[in-house]
Structure formats: C-alpha cells, structure tokens
C-alpha cells in the first residue's frame, strides 16, 4: 500500500521526466528558432589579370576564288582594312600571314599590338571590299576576329552556283589541329576529311565546304581547334547561271545558347516569303538559319523587331536536333530589324537578306548577319569604308541602357530602351566608333547601298585575355 512517501517519490520522478522533456523541447526549439551567430570563412580568391600580351586580330583578307583543283586558290582584288586602337597611337602592326597552299597572294593579315599597348578589346579591325568581276560581284565586309578554339559559323551554301570556303588563320606560335564539322538541312555531315586539319603557326588554310558537304543548301560549320587557336571565316559567292548575285564574308556567330540576338538585319526592299510557306525557293528572301546542335529537338520563339518602331512579328519554330533549318522571316517592309530567338534548348542562329536593284530580276548582293554576343562596358568598333554604314544596338535586357558612341571627336548619346533597339549612322568613309557604357547591348554594323549589302556582328573580346578568379587552395 503506497504511503505518502512513495507517492511523493513517484511524483518527484514524474516531475523530473516532465522537466527533462520540457528541457528537450526547449533545446530543440532554441536550436531551430534562435538565429545563432554564424562564422563562415570567406573563400580566398585572387583575380589574376593575365600578363600583358600582344593583342591580336585576324582579318580574313580579300575574297578568294577556288582554282582548278581544290588545293589552289587565288585572291580577287584586295580588301580595305580599317584599324582602330585606343589609345589611337598604340600602333597596330599588320603582319601578313603565310598564304594558303596553292597561292602566292597575300591573304589574311593579323593586326598586332605590342604587349600592354592596349587593353583587352581596344584593338579592332574590319575590312570591306567591293567585287565587280564576272564571277563574283557584291560588297563584303567583316570584322577582324580574335582567334578562338571553338567557333560556330552559320551561313553559306554549296548548292549549284553557290560556293562557300572556310578560311582558317592561325596567327599564334603553336600549330593548330582543326576539326571542321558541317551540319546541313539533313543533319550532321559525315566528312572525315574535315578532321585533323593542321594549320601551321602564322599560316592559313582554306577549306572548301563543298568538298565536305556537297549540295548542302544550309550548312552550319563548327570549327574546333586544339593546340593553337584559329580565326575562322566563311566566304560565300553566288552566281545564277552567269550573273553573279552577290558575295559575303561570314564571321563567327554566337556559340550555342538558349537565346540569340541578331541585330541590324537590313531588309533593303520590302518583300519576303511568309513564315509558313512550305516551298520557300531560292535565297533571295530574308531568312533565318537555325541549328540546334544538341540531341533534343528545340522549340524556339522568333520575334522580329523593326528598328523603326511598331509591332514586329512573332512566330514559333521547332528545330530538329542536328538539322539546320532555313526559315523565311516573313514579308517584311524595307528597313532594319533585330531578330531575337528564345528557345528551350541551345542553338545557333544567323540571318540572311539580299538586295535587288530596281528593275533587276536577280538579286545583286546578299548579306549574312550572325548573332552577336553582349558587349562589355567599352567596345571599340573599326568601321571600314562602305555605303550606308550603320551601327545597330539591341537591348534584350530589362533595363534601359544609355551608351555613348564616340566617332572621331563626335560623341553621341544612344538610349536603348529595355527590349528595344537603336542605331547610329556612321560616316561612309570608315573610321572607328568607341561605345562606352554599352555593357549588355548587342551590336552589329551594316552596310546598305545600291547593289551593295553587308553586315558583321560586333563581338566582345574573348575571355582569354580577361581576368580570371583563381582559388589557390
């Protein structure tokens, strides 16, 4: 029979258990609720500015013509090269690269500054050329490019009457082993001869795309190099029966991404083919070349924004993996456009338009507009001589960007609204433009004149010279 003492003891133990339980709950509560002070060691990073080196740009040089055999080429005329440096007296040296096999002509030129003479990106070059031969006619322009290890080139055609060459220039000191892979409208092209091409240091090489992918209406070329880096450029000429219908140098386009911006697409004359037209014959209409290089089909939404303002058109396309699609941009009024493509997978893009002189049946020139990469804070653009030169900006971001463009001594303010586009007229005699405060904008240069049409994207300097964050632990 429990006496009071036993009861007392039982009660005491009960209280002890309850107390312990309460303390447990309190401990958990305190651990969960109280924001205890934290101590998180900061990673030790050091941003390394690479030692100054020669800044280097490669200009592809004059249009080449394939000779009798595939190995020989010859230059058609010469290109006018515009060079710009900042500071202006940095003194860019022009080094002529060893010409490709089969020709004696000097072709590509590399622009070199002494180490430390200019900051990254503050050396720019561009070239233009007007061709009026019997086999090739038209206006072509290209920016002088930085050699890279991985380049995508969208453009060209190897159908009847179309000739496309790939120019590979290696201005470095290490031989580059280059693999050229071509995708066409039927998918990746098996072309072992495009693999393992060695480009000697300080030399260049010409590859006929027709040799790799004959009869391809819509090739996209992917150039990868190991060892040294190369500057890759496509050049295309067109001839319809006996009439040359244009020529163009096609620079690298932006690497595969889920969003691409092509700005400054010049449509000289109103017209075009509806987007949903199944039988878009020929290459005279404004069109878009898209390739999803991945393994999955990609759905892309294309919006065509007129620079003049007003509603653009929007349409969706599905890109089959590995197959290049040439898609008409629809019927467009004459003017400049910016094409923005958003997709659920990575893809590369470029646009093409053509100009037809009044009364002519056939187009007299065409142009390829590669996709651009976003600019850095300061960008130097070299502008070669040409007709109707314009510097275009597109701002796909959410905030208005106000940049200033200095041409010679003339500084202009350019305001690009969020999602908007803008352009600046450039003097026809060439020169240079310094864009400041333009971080995040996409830019390109276009030329539009009578029987003359060309454009090239303004690409920011590659990351190779930019500072890199190193964690030495």
């Amino acid at each position: 029979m429990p006496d009071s003492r036993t009861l007392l003891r039982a009660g005491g133990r009960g209280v002890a258990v309850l107390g312990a339980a309460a303390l447990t709950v309190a401990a958990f509560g305190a651990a969960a609720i109280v924001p205890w002070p934290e101590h998180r060691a900061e990673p030790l990073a050091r941003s390394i500015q690479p030692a100054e080196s020669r800044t280097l740009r490669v200009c592809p040089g004059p249009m080449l013509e394939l000779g009798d055999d595939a190995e020989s080429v010859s230059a058609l005329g010469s290109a006018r090269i515009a060079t710009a440096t900042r500071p202006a007296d940095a003194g860019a040296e022009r080094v002529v690269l060893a010409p490709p096999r089969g020709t004696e002509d000097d072709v590509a030129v590399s622009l070199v500054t002494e180490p430390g003479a200019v900051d990254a990106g503050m050396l720019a070059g561009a070239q233009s050329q007007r061709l009026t031969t019997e086999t090739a006619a038209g206006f072509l322009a290209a920016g002088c490019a930085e050699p890279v290890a991985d380049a995508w080139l969208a453009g060209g055609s190897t159908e009847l009457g179309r000739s496309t060459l790939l120019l590979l220039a290696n201005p470095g000191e290490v031989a580059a082993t280059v693999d050229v892979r071509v995708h066409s409208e039927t998918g990746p092209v098996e072309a072992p001869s495009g693999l393992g091409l060695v480009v000697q240091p300080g030399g260049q090489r010409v590859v006929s795309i027709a040799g790799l992918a004959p009869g391809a209406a819509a090739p996209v070329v992917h150039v990868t190099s190991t060892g040294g880096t190369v500057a890759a450029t496509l050049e295309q000429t067109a001839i319809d029966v006996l009439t040359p219908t244009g020529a163009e140098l096609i620079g690298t386009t932006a690497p595969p991404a889920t969003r691409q911006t092509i700005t400054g697409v010049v449509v000289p004359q109103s017209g075009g083919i509806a987007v949903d037209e199944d039988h878009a014959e020929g290459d005279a209409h404004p069109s878009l070349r898209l390739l999803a290089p991945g393994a999955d089909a990609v759905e892309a939404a294309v919006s065509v924004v007129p620079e003049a303002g007003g509603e653009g058109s929007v349409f969706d396309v599905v890109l089959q993996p590995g197959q290049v699609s040439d898609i008409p941009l629809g019927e467009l009024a004459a003017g400049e456009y910016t094409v923005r493509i958003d997709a659920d997978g990575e893809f590369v893009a470029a646009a093409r338009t053509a100009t037809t002189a009044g009364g002519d049946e056939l187009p007299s020139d065409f142009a390829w507009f590669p996709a651009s990469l976003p600019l850095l804070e300061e960008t130097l653009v070299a502008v070669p001589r040409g007709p109707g030169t314009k510097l275009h900006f597109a701002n796909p971001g959410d905030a208005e960007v106000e940049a200033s463009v200095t041409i010679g001594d003339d500084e202009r303010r350019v305001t690009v609204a969020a999602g908007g586009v803008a352009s600046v007229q450039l003097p026809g005699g060439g020169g240079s433009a310094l864009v400041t405060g333009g971080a995040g904008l996409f830019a390109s240069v276009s030329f539009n004149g009578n029987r003359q049409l060309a454009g090239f994207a303004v690409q920011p300097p590659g990351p190779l010279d930019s500072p890199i964050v190193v964690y030495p632990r």
Partner: protein
Amino acid sequence: MHGPSSFDRGSAARPPMATARSEPVLRLTAMSPRVTAILVVHRGGERLTRALDAIRAQSRRPERLLVALVQANAETRAAAAEAAPDGIIQIEERVAFGEAVRRAEQTLPPPQDDEDAVWLLSEDTEPESRALAALETTLETARSVAIAGPKLLEAERPDRIASLGRSMTRFGAAVPLVTGELDQGQHDGLSDVLGVDPGGILVRRAVWRSLEGFDPALPVVDDGLDLAVRARLGGHRVAVVPTAHVRFAAGGLIGPAAGHRAGAVRRRAAATRRAALHRRMSYAPAAATPLHWLSLLPLAVLRSIVLLVTKAPGRIVGEFGAALRTMFSFGAIARSRRVLRGARSVGWSAIAPLRMQPDEMRRRRRLEAEERRARARGRVDGVDFLATGGGWVLLVAVVVSIAVMFPLLGAAGVSGAGLLPLSPAVDELWRNASYGWRDVSTGFIGAADPFQAVLAVLGSLAFWSPSWALVALWLLAIPVSALGAWFAAARLTERGALRALAAVLWMLAPPLLSSLADGRPGAVLAHVLLAWLLYAALGSATSWATAATASLLFAAVVAAAPSLAPALLVAWIVGMAASGRGAARLALLPVPAVVLAAPLIWAQLAAGNRLALLADPGVPVPAAVPGSGVLGLGFTDPALGGWQQVLAALQASIDPRWVVAALLLPLALAALAAFATGRIRAAAFALAGAALGFATAVAAAQLSLAIIGASAAPVASAPGQSMMWLGLVLAAVVALDGVRRASAWLAALLTVATAGAVLPLAVSIATGRAEVGPAAQRSLPAFVTAEAENDPRVTTLRLVPEADGGLRATLEHGAGATLDEQSTFAQTRVTMDAGELALAEIAGNLASRGGFDADRAIDEFGISYVLLGQADADAPRAETQTADRSRAALDANAALVPVGETDFGTLWRFADAVPDAPAAQIPPHAGAPLAGWIATVQLIVFGAVLLLSIPAGVGREEPARRPKRPRPERVRRRGAKVVPAAPAAQAETEEGTPVEEGTPVEDGTPVEDGTPVEDGTPVEVGSAEPEPATAVEEPAHDGPPTDPGVTNPDEREGEHDAR
C-alpha cells in the same frame, strides 16, 4: 644557573649540568653518568608525556636526560621543563633527528670511558620499562657491541614489529630485516645485525664521537643504518636486543612520516632514494665514484620507466630530484667519505656476511609477487563478456558490418568525400605527423594536425600498405563501436540484453553510418572511440593504467574530431569535480591531447585564428549545412540518409523528417524515462551529455572554417551527434534497467525502430550508391604516377574549374595528394601566403592568353605537369567557359606539350620540365631544430603515458601494507542488501572489496554511482577513492555518511530480485 635562562637563549652549545630543580623527578647520581637519554621533541603533547612517563618508568633509569626541543612551542617547552630533565637544548630551526641528537650530545662532556652511552629517543618512542636495562646489559656483556637497538613495535598495535634491524643487499639497497610481522617471539634469537633504525638505540659515546654521529646528509632515511655500517667498519658490532621493547609511532621525527596519502608515500620514496644514492656515493671505492656519478641520471630514467609501468608516476619527480641533488652535493659526499675513511678499520668484506643474501631477496620478491597476485585475484571486473552475451553481440556486429560494407570487401583503398590514400611509406606517415614541412599544395613549415598522428598509428599497423588501414577502419568501425558501447553499458547494467541493446544502438547510430557513407574518417574514428573513451574514463579514478588508456583515447578522439574538444573538456571538468581523490588520475586525461596539439594550438593562436582549432582534420568536405531538425535526428544530410528518395519512390508526400522522428521516438522516450527510474544522477549525466552533444552539433553547423576552392566546408556535425547519441543510448539503458518486466521486449522495439531509421542509409552503402567506395588505383593520370616512380617529387598543377567561373589551383607531388599531408592550418588560413599568391598568379596566367613566362612555374614550384579537370556535362555555364578558356590557353601555350585526355582531365607537360626539379624538393632540415624538440617532448609524454597504460599495475596500485579487511564486517555495517553489488563498481575499485563504497544508495541499484555517464566521468564519490585502506584506518570517514536509500529496503530488494 642553567634554569629558565637556557630556554630563552636556546643555546645548544652550553654544557649541560645538573640543574637544581625544586622537584626533580630524575635525580642524577653524583657518580659519573653512564647512560644519557637524549629525547628529541618537536610536537609535544600527549606523546611527549607518554615518552617521559615511559622513561621515568624504566627499571633502570638513565642517569641523565637531555631534551632537545626542535622548534617546539611554548606549551611543549613548559611540559619539557616540568619533566625537569637535566638539560634542555633549544633548537629554533627544524633540524633532523640526527642533527638534534648531535647537538645535544655535544653539550655533554667528553666520554670518560667505554661505558658512557647515549640512548636516543624521541617523542615518538615509548620504551617499555625493561628496555634500557636490556640494552645496557647487552653493551655490558659484549664489549665489542657499540650500538644496541631495541625491537620497535608499532605504537597503535604493539603486537606487531615495526622494525628489528636493517640490512643491505649486495648492491647497497637498504632492506628491513623484519617489518609488519606479528610479534610472536619468532625473531627473538636475532642478535648481530648490519644496521638498526635509530629509534631507541643505545650507542657508546666514544664510538658515537669517533663516527661523528649521524651523517647530516641522511636526515630522514638510513641514518641509523649508515651509522651502524660505519660502526661495523670501525671494528665494532651492532646488535639488536629483542627483549628491549620500544613502541614506535612513525610521526616523522625519526624516519619518514607514515601514512598512505599519496603525498606521504611520494616523500617517503624520494627520501629513501636520496639516502640510497648518497650511501652509494659514500660507500663506493674512490675509483668507482665517477662511474656511479655518471650513472645517476641514466638510472633515474630507467627507474622512471619502471615506475611508470608499475603505476607509480608520482615518484618520478622524487626520483629525478634525488639523482640531481646527489649529483651536486659534492660537499656532503666528500664529508661522508672522509668520516667513513677516518673511522674505518676493517674491510667491506667484514660485513659481507651480514648483508641480505640474494636468495633471501629472491624469496622476498616472490612473496611480494604472490601477494600482488592474490590481490589481483580478488578483483572482479564484472564484465563477464562471454557470459552476458558479448560474444553474440560481436558476432552480430561483424555480420552487419560485412553486409553493410560489402562493396569494400577486398578493396585496397577506400575513397569518399573526405578520403584520400595514405602515404605509401610508414616513415613518411610519421614525418607528416610531426612538426616540419607540410607537403600540401605549395607547402610550408608548420605544425601537424594531431589527426596525422592517429593516421600514422593506423598506417603503421598496416605497414605493408598503409592505405589499407582506412579500409580496415571502415570494415571494423561497426564491430569496434558495438564492443565499446557494450563495455560502456557494462558499467551501467549487468543485464546482457541491455548491454546488447547499447551495442546495437551505438553501432547503428545515424552519425556513424552517415560518416561511413560520406567518407569522413575523423567522424568515424571519433564515433568508434567515444564509447571506449567513456568506458576507460569511468575507470580512470582508481587505476593509472585505465587513466592513461583513457587519456590516449581522449587524445585520439579530440584529434579525430576537434569540435568535440569543448564538450569533452566540460565533461572532464565536471568529472574532476565529482571524483574527489581520483581527480589526480583523471587530471591526466587531456594531457596527451594537449601535448599533441600544442604546436597547432600555438600556431593558430599566433595567427589569431582560434576558431580554426575546431576545424575537422583531413580533406574538407564541402556540404550543405544541415538544419537543426536534421541534426536532432542524428543525420547530417537533408535527405536523411536516403529517406527522401525512399518516400519519393513510394510517392508518399510526407516530410521524411516526420518518418525518421517517428522511428526514433521510442529511443527519445526511453531516454527521458531514465528519470523515472530514480537513478536521477545517471540519467542527468547521460542526458546532459546528450544535450552537450546536440549543442556541439548545432554549433559545428554554424562554423565553416576550412576553405576549399570557392567554398568553405562546414565543421562536421557528426561527432557532436555521436556524443548526443551516446547520451541517449545510455539514458535508455538506465531507463530499461529500471523496468522490472518486459525490458527485453522494449529493447527489441528500440532496436527495430532505430534499425528502421537507418535502413535506407545502410542499404545505400551496401549497394554502392553512397559516396564511399573502393578507391581507384590512382588519383593522378598513369603518365604522372609512372614518372613519380622515378621522381617522387614530380609536381602536377591541378586546375579545377569552379561553378562560379573561378579556377581552383593546387599542386600535387608524386603520385598525388594523401590524407596524411593535409593540414587544417593551411586550410583555415584567412590570408594567402606567398606560395599561394605565386601559385594563383601562375595558374591564372596559364589559364589565360598572355605574355606570361610559363617557365616561372618550373622555376618557382618545379611543376612538370598541368592537369585540367573536366567540367561536368551539367555544369553551370561559367564553369564550362572557364574550362574551355583554360583548355584553349593551355593548348595555345608553346611551353606546354599536350599529353592527352585522361580519366582525370586533360594533361599537359612542360616542355622544359626537369626531373627532380629543385623547386619541388622539400627544403632540407625543414623546421629544424624546433621539429626535433617538439618531437622529443611529444615522444617522452606519449612514451610515459603508454608505459603507464600497460596494465602491469594490477595489485600494485594500492598501499603496500594494506591490512586484509574482514569482509563480514562491512556487510554488517552496510546491511546485506548492498552486497549483491555492482560488478561495474567493482571493476573500478582495484581490489574489489570496497564495492559498497561506490554504491549508490538512493535506489539500491548498486551501479548507479559508479556510473558511467556519457561524459566519461565517474561521478560517484565513493569509488573514486583509490585507497580504501585509508578508510579503514579511519573508520569514521569510511563510506557515505548518510544512507538515505536504506530507508526503503523493499524497493531495492525488489529490483535486485528482478535481475
């Protein structure tokens, strides 16, 4: 005229004469005195009275009585004056007995003939009435006898002989002829001896003066022996007179003070050793003295080792003190030798027959050993491993381990987030464990992590392939954990089922399995050793061997998981406070850990980075910081060891935390229920330990200390969770131990529920889906490892693109980084050192196009290879870009020759790379001479602790003269109920008798007090008492003064019956 004035002046030199006193008790005869009694007094009091009374009561009274007052107080002076001796010599400083006697004797006129003798007494001696008569008779009948010694009997127990003659061994060690024996007249035939103890001896004054009295260099011990030896060498005889009885209390005036307190024992041992060394230096032939002098220190070292093994570390200081003081007391030795030379008339061979014969010494040693064995036999360890099912638990644990660790069976190495191979050579392991060159990345000279020493030990055990030691650790972690918990629980309960429960719950602990799955060697080791540490720490208070073992385990646990150090130190302090006299042994606990970590502690404090001391050793594991809910459930990842995936597969939309919480609820409830059993203290300590562990885990989650690439690795929470789990498990054991029925069923329920909670985790390890797995053959491309065969310092720059677009750059030497090279100091530095800055510059430039002179990589670091890691296919864009950029830059660099793609990334070789690059070599004499000093100190401390941990002290660690205590006496005192007694408590006490002392009385569960609490401290007061003998001698102090538990005998009976 020499009355009161002589008191005041305290003169010792005044010639004493008969003092005219009003009522002299001892009247001197006019004739020439023959026996002068010299009574040395220090304390006075009752003893003095008794001594004086005894002198007065002599059948043959001494003619004169001199009293030498040594620093006596006024009361004693008065008492001495009242006794009216014939002279009082005041000595104001504290002098030894021999010196006091010498001064007193000097006041006497020179001896007139051989009959003159002094009788040396002190307040501690109480001669029986016929003592002087018997002594004098001996001197009278044998003219050659110069010194006659009485039979000294123990004052408190006059039936026991305290001393009857002394002798020496052949090597000069002093040995008593008889000691502690019951006096049954068995030694009454003894006469001629080599030496005597000085109490109560009668010495011819002529001889005394010729020998210059006692040697002042032998103030406490061996003074009588030395005097007698010199007398013998002077051609005299020394005899004991067994019929002269003198009661002797070892009060510290003659000979060393008695007592079993540690301090008294230590002082006695030191004085004995000093005396022995002094005699050795005095007696040795002149030619041999330099040799003896040189041998003093080496012998002290050797004897210290023996003292450690025999568990008497307290005597080491005295040992060295004796050696050093003897080494530098040239004057005293010279004096002793001079006196000896002057008095000597016969050779040493004359006394050889009186020395203790070797066979007698052997017999004595045999007897001692037998006695020790007998004592050791009395011990019951209370563990009964096989009888209570420990074997089955081990078997089950082995089977579980094989099942869970199946992928690792037959592996040569183990890989995981925090794992790397160990250095292939054992000497390299030890070099990496000591202060000096830290060969991690760019390298520096600094302190090693204590964990490297643990790795070195593990690696040395598997010397043929050190990396395999980690495989063994993974394979053995579960069984060894289980055993540890089983033994720890054995301190709490004698029920096999509950011990098994503790073992199973501990080996299935989520923190252990999480650490095993992730590959965190530090956390695994901490878990494995924590229960063992508790087991050892609970026995520390009573045994040096156990205390030393616990301190080594403590060092290993803290080395493996420094984040546990604060919690363990708190537990240690609480344990020290609770363990009473055992605190001395417990104080040893953190010493090896501190010595091991001292260089690192110093370095981190000097760097102002105190928190970094808590950083986990080894490879930092960047991981998500677990929330406190996850921490409380014992897991370290938000997926709760795979429950998230399991529930997702079942398409159950339940938060996995609830599922695990439900499965762990029984354990939590059982732990809380420990309070209901009445073993409040055990429950409180267990749960306080659990709380401490939880707090440690939460605190660890707030800290990210080690920097690896672009992230900082949080401190592992698993060790804290292990401690929490241990507290919970022990509390649950306490609770179930209090349940009379169905505890086995409850234990089964706990086991099943807990096993369920960790099942997904165990399955993921067993099926190879966990991070941990067999190690790859290499950690660098074969191209590099092949070169490392010829050039062990071949240096590879490893570049790894980070998710944020940065580039991680590290250097690896030889065949790759190893676990034993890692350094928390390097990982936790908050600034970059010069090497890291240079490395960053080189790596950044190699990954960029630029005008950088790539040969700087060879000049500064001797880099031969550059290895660029691949970015994963699903890596963020910034990472891919950095990888591409770096590859392009390296490709384009004319100084680099591409080697090709490997399993570890793309490899380049420097065209100008040189074998055995000078910049890649470890600087010669790195860290010298500091490294040598630190290693020496650490080796000495660990050597001493290791020697101390050898369990050779069984039966030794107690007072040598501990009387056998009749057991029934205690039973009678305590009541029979307590006798069924706790095996655990018994295990802690050295000889098993004082079980009851450790016995908690509150509820009659006898083990409670000796109870292991999770913090590793024996909390009881009683069992912490190392020398129960003291308790016996002072019965008033014996045992707990209050005994509340006795008031409720019924309940206790019931509980015992339930067992």
